[in-house]
């Protein structure tokens, strides 16, 4: 018997079809303030205080990127170009402010062009652009610097422009809501650790993506229902997947990429990429002795897995995390992926795919890919060949164990 579709999967999929989706429109109608952002280095929870809600930008419905390429050159990150293209097509006019970070050169240029080209709605008189300077390491000087940046460039403008209450108690409320979403996503993700998982990587990616692009309070109920549904969901008796893989890499907001990988027989059991659940959907644990903003910033800087952080201990941390996810989720291999022309990940992917396979002895596939790659036959061939090699290794290992038993 074929496993039943998740009750709300279609609903979640529909939410991903446009940036200004049904729930964003509903929240706006209820007086919500929509704040756009693009990167983990902007602490999402700060954009969800009071009536504010965060929308992490994607570029659904994207066709060609000709105009953005004219402004940014064809050697710049496709994600950034896709956002600029859709911005010029009017996709983000619903936003009330844009919270950028100085994390990578391509995104800086994307934001700069958006601002110069005036892609925001001119009727929104309080609209503001901001760009926060993000340090390259995670020591206490860096924490203090980023804390001050966020206070001046995010919290104060929200208060001054929209009258948002930015008190400790309001931030703590936002953290509580954020943590509930993270708890639900984490619990749903835990199902991928079992021998025959009850959900696919594609389904999980759709759910996780929805939590990044919708107001949290409007999506929590359906996430709860989905978690309950999964607790009693029966997987297919015959396993549909031949191997399990961890995906590690840059920005992925394309469920079709995960579907393509899973169609070749590789179940994606852990998602360590921008827009994935690691590290974006990990709870923020607060104490009562320190101001809440500092605690949020420290966690963000400690847990970032972006290769822009090139201190040796951060590089080692990223390798160890990839290996840890591989162990925890009982994977057979790791796929290192990189958005085409992403500067940081192009270095990281090249090095890590060697280090992880040679020093950590974990089978690794390394791919770079365009922003939209669901139809790529070449990518399918690469992944399928990797799946076949992993499967053969598993068969050989089983045969070896059997032979040992007979002896």
């Amino acid at each position: 018997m074929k496993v039943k579709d998740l009750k709300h999967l279609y609903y979640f999929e529909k939410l991903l079809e446009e940036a200004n989706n049904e729930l964003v429109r509903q929240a706006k109608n209820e007086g919500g303030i929509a704040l756009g952002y693009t990167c983990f280095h902007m602490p999402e929870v700060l954009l969800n205080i009071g009536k504010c809600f965060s929308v992490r930008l994607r570029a659904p419905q994207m066709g060609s990127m000709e105009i953005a390429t004219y402004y940014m050159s064809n050697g710049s990150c496709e994600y950034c170009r896709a956002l600029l293209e859709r911005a010029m097509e009017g996709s983000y006019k619903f936003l009330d402010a844009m919270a950028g970070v100085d994390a990578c050169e391509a995104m800086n240029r994307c934001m700069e062009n958006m601002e110069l080209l005036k892609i925001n709605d001119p009727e929104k008189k309080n609209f503001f652009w901001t760009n926060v300077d993000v340090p390259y390491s995670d020591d206490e000087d860096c924490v203090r610097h980023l804390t001050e940046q966020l206070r001046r460039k995010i919290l104060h403008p929200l208060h001054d422009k929209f009258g948002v209450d930015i008190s400790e108690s309001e931030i703590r409320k936002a953290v509580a809501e954020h943590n509930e979403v993270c708890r639900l996503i984490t619990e749903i993700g835990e199902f991928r650790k079992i021998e025959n998982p009850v959900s696919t990587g594609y389904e999980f990616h759709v759910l996780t993506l929805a939590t990044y692009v919708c107001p949290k309070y409007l999506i929590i109920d359906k996430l709860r229902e989905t978690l309950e549904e999964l607790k009693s969901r029966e997987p297919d008796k015959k396993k549909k997947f031949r191997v399990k893989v961890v995906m590690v890499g840059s920005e992925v907001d394309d469920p079709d990429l995960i579907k393509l990988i899973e169609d070749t027989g590789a179940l994606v059991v852990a998602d360590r990429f921008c827009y994935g659940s690691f590290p974006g959907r990990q709870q923020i644990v607060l104490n009562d002795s320190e101001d809440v903003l500092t605690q949020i910033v420290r966690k963000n800087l400690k847990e970032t897995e972006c290769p822009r952080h090139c201190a040796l201990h951060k590089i080692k941390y990223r390798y160890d995390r990839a290996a840890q996810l591989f162990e925890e989720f009982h994977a057979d291999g790791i796929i290192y992926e990189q958005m085409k022309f992403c500067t940081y990940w192009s270095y990281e992917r090249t090095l890590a795919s060697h280090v992880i396979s040679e020093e950590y002895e974990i089978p690794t596939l390394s791919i770079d890919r365009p922003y939209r790659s669901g139809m790529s036959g070449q990518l399918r061939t690469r992944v399928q060949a990797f799946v076949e090699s992993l499967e053969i290794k598993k068969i050989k290992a089983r045969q070896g164990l059997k032979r040992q038993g007979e002896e």
Partner: protein
Amino acid sequence: MKYFGGCDVGSTYTKCVILQENGEIVSSVTIRSKINSELSAWAALDQAIAQVAEISKPSDLAYLIGTGYGRNKVPFADENISEISCHAMGVHVTNPNVKAIIDIGGQDVKGISIDKDGTVASFAMNDKCAAGTGRFFEAMANAFEMSIEEFSKLSLSAKNTIPITAQCTVFAESEVITLVGEGKPRDEIAAGIQLAVAKRCFVMAKKAGAKDSITLTGGCAKNEGLKKAIEDVLKIKVIELSIDPQLMGALGAAEFARQKGMDKE
């Protein structure tokens, strides 16, 4: 007697191999691919099956595996396997001493290293553009107004090599036309083209872990000028196969089908 089939639906050519139980090839076919992968597979299967008296249709095969670009469109296939795994297996059953392959297909170039049991140890793939692929050679042969066969031998008489700097197929074609227009010796231009592709092959082979020898598979394996460029300039020995190198994907698929089909019983 049971028979096992492998059907390699490539972007340019479709190949089919049928094996009997002892692994011997009883039938093989190579045809130009059609726009529809399924129709290509049907045509190749029909022709291959017609060569075996005891079977009359694809479903008579005990096990059939599809591979290549159109691998999931092969009618009646029991499963599909990537061409990377199939080329490795095809070469392994042809010559178990070969440990590395450069497969030059119609639309990509792959470097593959083979484990001792015929499975893939490692691979690298250039699939970003047509540079260095079968399509590239077709465009170059067109620029010289020659058939592929004629073009593949043209560089053999060259005393010098005129380097081609453009990697893009379209730009390389216009560079070649310019050089021909300037009256440069055609065989030396052709040697430059072969060297450019050989370098690309070298990168793929090294990325996949090749040491000092390789074999060529795919349609371009028959290109004598390319073989010479790889051996003379890049100092990598090219091992000749006893079976048509263009059939390696289909042969590997048929061998996988034989192993799986025999196991099934």
